């Protein structure tokens, strides 16, 4: 398992956010997850150039908790618009992968249940797989539809949590993440993909803190 990025720590997230903003503005097609963010490769330089322009207001945004429970029991979602655009766009990619029937990259979403018995495992997946896909697709839809909401019910936030974790599992599998992985150098061809992976972990950590 891995430890989430510290939600209180502004270091190391501002570059990621800048990359995300560039990724969203650069891409409008419907390719799979890695294709979706491939245009992020050229954003490291942009991020470095923009760093000097960061205002105190931006820094406040990172110091505050992004998601917190309100006194009425709903959850206040304090995310910048570029992140919301990303969260609105990504579930479509996930939904397409879930319903395309192509298991590439999805093995971590549908692990073996009977790891010692292939026959029973096949029966299990035959019975459960469509229900599992429906559950994951439903949560992806919740994230897509509420990405711009300023407040969420607990049920909606649980939908976010599941969808963000599924996206993280798919991306982490594609990147072949291990517990010992060090982040790649900024000019690594997959640096932007790692940026997205870490952003999703940062967001997930915020969600878990808010509901715990």
């Amino acid at each position, binding site marked *: *398992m891995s430890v989430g990025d510290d939600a209180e720590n502004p270091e190391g997230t501002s570059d990621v956010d800048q990359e995300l903003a560039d990724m969203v503005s650069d891409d409008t097609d419907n390719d799979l997850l890695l294709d979706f963010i491939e245009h992020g490769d050229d954003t490291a330089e942009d991020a470095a150039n923009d760093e000097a322009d960061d205002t105190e207001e931006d820094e406040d945004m990172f110091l505050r908790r992004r998601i917190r429970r309100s006194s009425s029991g709903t959850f206040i979602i304090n995310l910048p618009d570029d992140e919301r655009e990303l969260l609105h766009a990504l579930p479509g990619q996930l939904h397409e992968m879930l319903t395309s029937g192509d298991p590439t990259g999805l093995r971590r979403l549908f692990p073996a*249940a009977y790891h010692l018995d292939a026959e029973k495992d096949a029966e299990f997946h035959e019975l459960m797989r469509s229900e599992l896909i429906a559950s994951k697709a439903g949560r992806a839809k919740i994230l897509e539809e509420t990405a711009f909401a300023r407040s969420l019910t607990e049920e909606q936030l649980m939908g976010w949590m599941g969808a963000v974790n599924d996206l993280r*599992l798919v991306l*982490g599998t594609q990147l072949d*993440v291990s517990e010992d992985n060090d982040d790649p150098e900024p000019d690594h061809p997959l640096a932007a993909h790692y940026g997205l992976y870490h952003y999703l972990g940062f967001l*997930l950590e915020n969600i878990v803190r808010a509901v715990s």
Partner: protein
Amino acid sequence: MPVASPTEVVSGDTDTRQGLDRPWIVLVWNDPINLMSYVTLVIQKVFGYPKEKAESLMWDVHTKGRAVVSNGNREKAELDVFRLHEHGLWATMQQDDA
């Protein structure tokens, strides 16, 4: 239709005692992607365990590679595994060796 008497079934069917009746255990395995805080929360929510117990199981998964998170008959174990898969945890089930 001839029906075996209950006493014959209970005393004679060693396969039942040694096979079908053995309880099933549900295991969660360590994986490099899931966040520790997330795994704790999912174990809490799925099983209704107190936070301390869920945290202790999470640490077992992290340090020992796996932990038994629940047990019961086959149907219950399948449902538990399904709910863990629903939340993206790497869960499997097997009959208890003990």
